[in-house]
């Protein structure tokens, strides 16, 4: 008879992904980039990319141990239209987390979502 043992490494508490810390970082980036800005067809594509990169880099600075990070940013023009966003994850609830933050002013909204996936 043979047995298989799987020892799963649980994230060490000091370097565990901290949702509140990540959320504050995201809030800071969004406010810095978008405060006072108006939706602009020419600039929004580069804003979305820059914000995604900036959030990812900020989260990398926290040096969460063995976490892969995915940041998704959506910027839309506010013209009274309806928008809905949903997400579903197939992962390990003990270790993987997601955080999201939405910034809006009178001309645009921006939702940034960060997913942190633990790599065994």
């Amino acid at each position: 008879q043979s047995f298989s043992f799987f020892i799963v490494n649980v994230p060490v508490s000091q370097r565990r992904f901290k949702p509140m810390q990540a959320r504050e970082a995201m809030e800071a980036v969004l406010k810095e980039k978008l405060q006072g800005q108006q939706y602009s067809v020419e600039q929004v594509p580069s804003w979305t990319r820059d914000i995604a990169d900036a959030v990812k880099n900020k989260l990398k600075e926290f040096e969460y141990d063995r976490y892969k990070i995915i940041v998704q940013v959506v910027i839309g023009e506010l013209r009274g239209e309806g928008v809905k966003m949903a997400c579903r994850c197939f992962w390990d609830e003990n270790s993987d987390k997601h955080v999201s933050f939405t910034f809006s002013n009178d001309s645009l909204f921006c939702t940034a979502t960060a997913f942190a996936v633990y790599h065994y």
Partner: protein
Amino acid sequence: MDVDTEGAFVADEIKTSVKETVDSVLHDAVYDHDKVSQWTNQIVEDCTKKLVGLQKPFKYIVTCVIMQRTGAGIHTAASCFWDSSSDGYAVVRVDTKSMYAIATVFGVAL
């Protein structure tokens, strides 16, 4: 590091499967504020089930944005810190007469 194509994220088959799911949920529907929650949830749920059915050693994140077509603009971008030899993503955009749907799948290897 060996690049093992068996273990890598294959975007094409996933794109086809996601597009089928979005088309089947939205088909000829007209944007309806009361139903849009149900549509987004159903799309991400059905996509996740199909992905799990592929039985590959991946964790998946599926997101879906549905926006009413009123002439307003929308943009999405993603930035990832992962292993690009094994992890990947697929984006599918479906336009109907009354709405835009953007579905994204991120696959992270175990």
